[in-house]
């Protein structure tokens, strides 16, 4: 990494810490908090699809699992939201791991289609299992993190702090896993050439399953944060539009770098929300354009532009 590339994550971190003090506005904080949740989801996608090369079209499903599990645990069993986050992440990780087993035999197109089908199944279950999920109306009226201040602005600031701290810690864990451990090397080896990786004695089965479990677990954690922040979970979070947005963010930022998708998520979500002022329908037009242009012309995303320029 060049000095310039290293400076950018630091700038993001500094900006994230200073934001609630510099711009203490509920609207800004709301967008920033949600952008942070998206950043975690995009980073989790990148661990599996960017680093390990297993393209998932189902991250909306893992995200929704985490969100529903957390919301349902708090609403129906009065589980503390802190524990609820863990419940959501664990359930998503387990389902991700179970998805990993068939995925061992599939690659490329097929894996993407299976994960897309899985997300669609999750969406249909969410829509139809009225007793647990509230059907099309979703789950609402459940409590959020305890002990936060009641005043509107202070609540937003505190919520922002909680979400950003959890997101930053999660991204740091993923970064260490990918860049500082043998697992990270194995992920990249699997992406570049799976057969060669096997020949070199890498247990590709184990590392692929690890990537699936970790990636879907953090996607589920993002879902849990979303549930406690927005306090409404409806079937539309599992829709393909969510996956599309996440992939757009990762492609925009640059695959296989973790911080690229994080940056992509922050910028694209900002654009997405910003374009609401122009007209609520143009934001997804922009996401579609960004995906197409970056896949074709800037395969390494913003991270790659920074590196080669």
């Amino acid at each position, binding site marked *: 990494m060049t000095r310039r590339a290293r400076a950018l994550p630091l700038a993001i971190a500094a900006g994230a810490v200073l934001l609630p003090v510099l711009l203490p506005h509920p609207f800004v904080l709301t967008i920033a908090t949600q952008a942070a949740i998206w950043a975690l989801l995009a980073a989790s996608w990148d661990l599996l699809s960017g680093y390990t090369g297993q393209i998932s079209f189902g991250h909306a499903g893992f995200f929704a699992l985490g969100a529903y599990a957390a919301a349902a645990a708090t609403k129906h069993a009065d589980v503390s939201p802190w524990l609820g986050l863990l419940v959501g992440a664990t359930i998503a990780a387990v389902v991700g791991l179970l998805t990993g087993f068939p995925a061992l035999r599939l690659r490329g197109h097929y894996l993407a289609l299976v994960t897309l089908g899985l997300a669609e199944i999750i969406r249909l279950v969410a829509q139809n299992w009225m007793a647990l999920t509230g059907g099309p109306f979703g789950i609402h009226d459940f409590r959020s993190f305890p002990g936060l201040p009641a005043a509107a602005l202070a609540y937003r600031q505190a919520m922002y702090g909680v979400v950003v701290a959890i997101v930053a810690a999660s991204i740091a864990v993923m970064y260490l896993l990918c860049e500082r451990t043998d697992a990270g090397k194995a992920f990249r080896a699997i992406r570049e050439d799976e057969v060669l990786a096997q020949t070199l004695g890498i247990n590709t089965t184990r590392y692929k399953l690890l990537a699936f479990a970790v990636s879907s677990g953090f996607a589920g954690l993002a879902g849990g944060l979303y549930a406690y922040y927005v306090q409404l979970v409806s079937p539309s979070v599992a829709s393909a539009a969510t996956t599309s947005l996440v992939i757009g963010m990762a492609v925009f930022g640059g695959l296989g770098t973790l911080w690229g998708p994080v940056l992509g998520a922050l910028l694209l979500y900002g654009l997405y929300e910003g374009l609401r002022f122009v007209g609520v329908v143009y934001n997804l037009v922009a996401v*579609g354009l960004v995906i197409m242009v970056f896949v074709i012309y800037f395969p390494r995303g913003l991270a790659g532009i920074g590196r080669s320029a």
Partner: protein
Amino acid sequence: MLESLLEFLIQGVVLGGLYALFAVGLSLIFGVLDVINVAHGEFFAIGGYLAFAAVVLLHLPGAMGILGAAVGTFLLGLCVYPLLIAPLKRRLGGRPQGPLYLVLTLGLSTFLQSSLLAIAGGDYLRVPPQVSGILDLGVTAVSFQRLLVLGVAALLLTALFAFLRFHPEGLAVRAVSQNPDAAQAMGINLPRVFAFTLALGVALAGVGGALMAPLFNVYPAVGFPLTIKAFAITILGGMGNPAGALVASFVISIAESLSVMVIPSQWQNLIAFAVMIVMLLIRPRGLFGRAVSR
């Protein structure tokens, strides 16, 4: 019991016509270009909107709506290869990067769907049926509109398979599907075949959209669930095998219709995905797929 079985069977066959129109094109595109077109359903939606524009806005007869949808989606489809697929292919060179095309067409899907939303709004638009009336079969009644879908599907797919079998251009498409390098060596213009096949495939979806518009209504996201279901169908039939997709369309549609007798109807959409996942686990190349995995 027997009566309702027959009733659901008939409904299943009628639905199968639509699935076939949609999935055969998707499978053809995959077989020739090695690209899974995630945006296939958006061409279905565009077909519906073109039918709406022709019939409701311009007061043309229903047949013109279908024709307009076919021509419009065909022309739009012609642009996809040179503008999107070819540049990515050039950048990748010889490297096989299948999933990147998926991401690319996912972007196209999002772009088209939200463009439709921006242009036409999110309202459910009603399109009058091209034919009216109901055929009473005793055990069940089928509207002529549904029979029209089945009839047009049968006609177009027969024409398509005849074209692929006998026409020199169709033979070129099949040659490229089997071995692009050899086909090119024989003097076949690959980019032309790619662009043409893609246009042909999405035009079938466009016609489907125009025919289904009176039954489904038209809105920007109308096609996307169909795309996901068509993935399941093409996997069942063997990816890149249009004839397999045809058979699988009817297998899935009949299974869905009959399932209503056993499980609540809101779960019937799960069947296709369950079949897809089971199929991928036990026999990824599908019922009629090629032995070589790609």
